[in-house]
């Protein structure tokens, strides 16, 4: 059963304990200065955005069919059956195509290092594999961030929307976006306000390139045979001309 995270912004009190838990799990420094930063970065893999009295988390959405994993030329990024999208630093050569391609612009780079790596939330894949919940969910005192089976979380999200329709925007972000994501979001204010694109494709993006890539075997076969054939024809024409004692035709 694939795991997921349900974040309900209406339950969030902006305490940022999830940020702290995340930093600890990932071995990243965390203090008041880091807490004040309002964007994801290579040293802040999740952030609680604040706007007036509203909050919204940003973290890797751990897509069901992740764009980053499809574009990575060395397979450093992988979708695991358990749900997390993991990153293998020993494979990464630093082309940064994942950063360009990610529809949520999640992967961040260690720009200040001479030998940098990509950093992103991997939904605590080691903890999840060990049967524990993610660090952020464990740290959350109000239940705004909840870890569990994605299907169960989705059912619960629908229930919350139905139970208190006035309290929520009637949309579960992550159900259909780019083919669905492991992270599901609920909010009382438009998702756009916090930079979540709502005009995003509901189709998994890897299809866009796969459609083209899948033609390559045909293209190579047909192309090579056609070129070989043209060579044979033009060459043959000259051979015949030579045999008949005429000058070689050099016109096309």
């Amino acid at each position: 059963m694939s795991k997921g995270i349900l974040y309900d912004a209406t339950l969030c009190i902006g305490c940022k304990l999830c940020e702290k838990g995340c930093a600890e799990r990932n071995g990243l420094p965390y203090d008041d200065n880091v807490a004040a930063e309002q964007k994801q970065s290579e040293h802040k893999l999740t952030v609680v955005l604040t706007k007036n009295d509203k909050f919204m988390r940003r973290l890797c959405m751990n897509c069901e069919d992740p764009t980053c994993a499809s574009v990575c030329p060395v397979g450093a990024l992988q979708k695991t059956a358990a749900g997390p999208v993991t990153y293998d630093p020993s494979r990464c050569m630093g082309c940064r195509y994942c950063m360009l391609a990610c529809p949520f612009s999640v992967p961040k780079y260690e720009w200040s290092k001479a030998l940098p790596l990509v950093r992103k939330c991997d939904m605590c894949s080691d903890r999840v594999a060990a049967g524990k919940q993610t660090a952020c969910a464990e740290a959350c005192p109000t239940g705004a961030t909840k870890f569990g089976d994605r299907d169960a979380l989705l059912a619960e999200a629908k229930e919350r929307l139905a139970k208190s329709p006035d309290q929520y925007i009637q949309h579960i972000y992550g159900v259909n976006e780019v083919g669905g994501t492991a992270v599901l979001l609920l909010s009382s204010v438009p998702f756009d306000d916090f930079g979540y694109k709502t005009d995003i494709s509901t189709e998994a993006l890897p299809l866009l390139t796969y459609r083209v890539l899948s033609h390559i075997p045909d293209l190579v076969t047909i192309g090579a045979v056609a070129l070989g054939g043209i060579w044979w024809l033009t060459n043959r024409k000259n051979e015949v001309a030579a045999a008949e004692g005429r000058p070689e035709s050099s016109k096309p």
Partner: protein
Amino acid sequence: MFKGKITFWRVVLAVVLLLAGYATVLRFARGLGASTNLSDAFPWGLWIGFDVMCGVMLAAGGFTLTAAVYIFNLKNFKPIVRPTVLTAFLGYLLVVVALLYDLGRGYRIWHPLVMWNPRSVMFEVAWCVTLYTTVLSLEFAAVIFERFHLEKLVRLQKMIVIPLVIAGVMLSTLHQSSLGSLYLIVPNKLHPFWYTPLLPVLFFLSAICVGLAMTIFESSMSAKHFGKQLEMHLMRRIGRTLLVVLGIYTVVRFQDLLQRGVLHLVSKGGYEVNLFLLEIFLCSVAPIALLMIPRVRESAGGLYLASVLCLLGFVTNRMNVAITGMEASAGQRYFPKWTEISVTLAIVGFGFLVFALAVRYLPIFGHQEESQPISQFEVARDGSPELLHVRP
């Protein structure tokens, strides 16, 4: 050329190389953050947009001309195959150099060859570029073998030349188009002027245009600087072909823009619109208009001008896809740092330098292997044997 004189361009090259040397130290000692204007919001900049995307494109003459000569048997073009293959070979080697700067961990550049992900366009590009650079080195090996009189190897190379050329054309078709496919994955990030499902088709067609334009450009430059006779009858034919392919490209480009209904965005004006209009003018309007005029098409200066405009146009196109079109969604402008610019200029300068050295020490021009003295005959028939020195 190499008389030890201090000329303007040599001073420029020296300054660029010095700056690039310092930039190189910065890049490898202090990382990409200190040495570039790249950021999380803008992860690909000049080194990808120009050095890689334009570098590969500008090297497209290699597959275009080898296909014409070896597959379509247009033997007249044989005298200009070697300089074109040299340009392509150098181009690809320099792309690899640029990648070593741009990749966060360049020493892992070989990883895609052993760690596969066939779903990735980048994986396919990595393989094609590796294989095609190998093909080019084998095509170019003929020159080295001949220079050192390795007759056996010369014969051996001739035996495999047709399969090599076919492989080269296929590999080029794949990765020239795939550089466009790289951007198919960002429908929400790339500006609608440039995001289209036809990106791979447009990239491929424009690579052919650039391959032809580059052949004219490089022959003209060689005529000017190495005192070689410009083969006007060949240049005219390439010019005519360029006109046709540019026409096809333009029809496809506009058909796509109209069908997606984005041309009305031009009326909004602004930054993207200006660069889009510049691109269209340089890629399509200006060179096509010039080449349509017989007097221009038949003259060395006219062909040179049209090819330079065309090259500038498609460089603008690639930079628009890689940089201009991505700025709005990134929410910020990107302009390369001096370090990025100096490394790029040094790579270009280095290319010119190695080309000049190769022309001096290797049998690049004037090798008459198999080619009949058709050229003189055709020049005479065409009228004037213009021993031309181009006025840029």
